Each structure stands twice: as C-alpha cells, then as structure tokens.
C-alpha cells in the first residue's frame, strides 16, 4: 500500500520524501480539523453532565 504510493510518486528520493511528508501533514490536518471533531461525540469519553436520557 505505502510501497505502491512511494513507487508512484514522481522525482528522486528527496522529492519523494518531501511529497510524502506533505501528504502526511495533509492527512493529519484533515483528521484534526474534520474527522476527529466528527467522531468525538460518538465516543463515550467526554460526557460530563448528568441527564435522564
């Protein structure tokens, strides 16, 4: 999977490493900005109030 991505990146090893790093950062950004805020309320870690539901 990751080998496949690596082989399909253009340029030499340094260019590929740089692109890989950018890809990783992009993925982390999407996770922190969109995926985790969406997933968090669905997980039972952070309910602090008492209620009768």
């Amino acid at each position, binding site marked *: 999977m990751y080998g496949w991505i690596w082989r399909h990146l253009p*340029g030499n090893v340094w260019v590929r490493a740089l692109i890989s790093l950018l890809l990783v950062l992009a993925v982390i950004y999407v996770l*922190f900005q969109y995926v985790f805020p969406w997933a968090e309320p669905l997980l039972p*870690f*952070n309910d*602090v109030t008492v*209620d009768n539901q």
Partner: protein
Amino acid sequence: MAATADDTAEHTDASDPSPAPGGRRPGRIAKTVSVFGELLITAGVLLALFVVYSLWWTNVIADRKADKRADKVRDHWAQTTDSGPGALDTKDGIGFLHVPSMKNGAVLVEKGTGTDVLNDGVAGYYLDPAKATLPTTGKDGNFTLAAHRDGHGAKFHNIDKVRTGDPIVFETRDNWYVYKVYSILPETSKYNVKVLSAVPKESGKTKPGHYITLTTCTPVYTSEYRYVVWGELVRVQKVDSKRTPPAELQS
C-alpha cells in the same frame, strides 16, 4: 546525492517489500499479509493521533477561545458602570469560577451544558434536566455547573483534589460569592439527576439554601460515572474598585 535516473531506479527496487531474485514478484499471500500489516500499523497510528487530538489539541483550541471570551466579558464589565438589573451579560458568560484547590485559574461560566458550550473551555450552568439557580438572583436554590475533565480545556480535571472545606468562589461583575465545599460524591450514575436538586438530599442537606454543585465525568479519560462536589454559600463580598479578591483566593 546524485539525482540520476539510475539512482531512482535503484531506490524503487529497494523499496519493494521483498524483491524475489530473478525478477519474480512476491506471491499473492505475501502481498495480502503485507497490506494487512500496513493496515494494522495505520490503525495504531490513527488511534495514537486521536489521543493526541483529544488530550492536547482540543485543550489548545478551547483555551484560546475561552481566553478570548473571558477578555470580552472583562471588557464588558469595565465598560458598563450601571449596576441595575439586566446588567448581567449572558451571551459571552456570566462570570468566573475560582477553585484554588483545582489550580486552574479563573474558569469562565456560560449558559448551558451542551457540547457546543463546554467544548469552548468553559464551565456551563445547567438548563436541563434542572435549571440552575444563579447566585445573582439571590434566591434559594442550586447553582449547578458542569465542565470537561479531559480535553476541551479540561477545566475540572483536578476535581479530585478538592477537599471538604475548600473554597469555591464565583466572581461576577459586582460580587464575589464565596462557597465552602461540604460534601463530595466521588462516583455516581450519569442518570443521577437528583444531585442537581434545589435541595440536594444526597449531600446531606434537607433545608433550602444557597448551594453550588460541580459535576464532571470520572474516572479520568472516560465517562463511565459522574463526580459531584457540593458547596454552600458562606458570604457575598462586594467587588471593590480594585477588584481585590476575597481572602480565600489570596494565598
């Protein structure tokens, strides 16, 4: 490093998981196992990132927002000088909660306990299932509050450090409401809404009075149970021109 075509080709080969001699590609099973392994590693990294997100990043975001709002409330207080009714600014927050034993500074108090409110790094007063009685009304009742234990500012993280007899001070524009902790319930069901009653019987009280209730989740990092701290109003101190904090906050 030379960036020749040969160099690139070499690296391409080297990065192949298991280049079999004689140019033979790895078998289907070997490929499946390798993809499965990569998926497991990915899942592990994802979970680790989620922990980083919930225990660190949400605090960064929430504290930033809460600081901004707190400044707004202080500015608002400084600007309005009339002390008539309706001077209470409920949009940005109604005041600040100081619990010295929690060592978390001044926590902004806002209306409501929905995640949209609490995720901004504040403490919220209950509207549902039982509406909190604000101390500013002067009526008997229970000033019920909730805040996050972890992440999103983690304003009640150190609630387990609060002991009976510790002060809880609520600061508004005009007054310092000084409460004293008299009862603690370290673990209760999340459905136990009776802890929010105007007269919280579980705390040992039977008569109406001016109470304060702090709720958050317990044990840390989970929301299995609720942790409850009760306090009773000791005195109300007028805010002076220098906003000198009451004796309980000076140490």
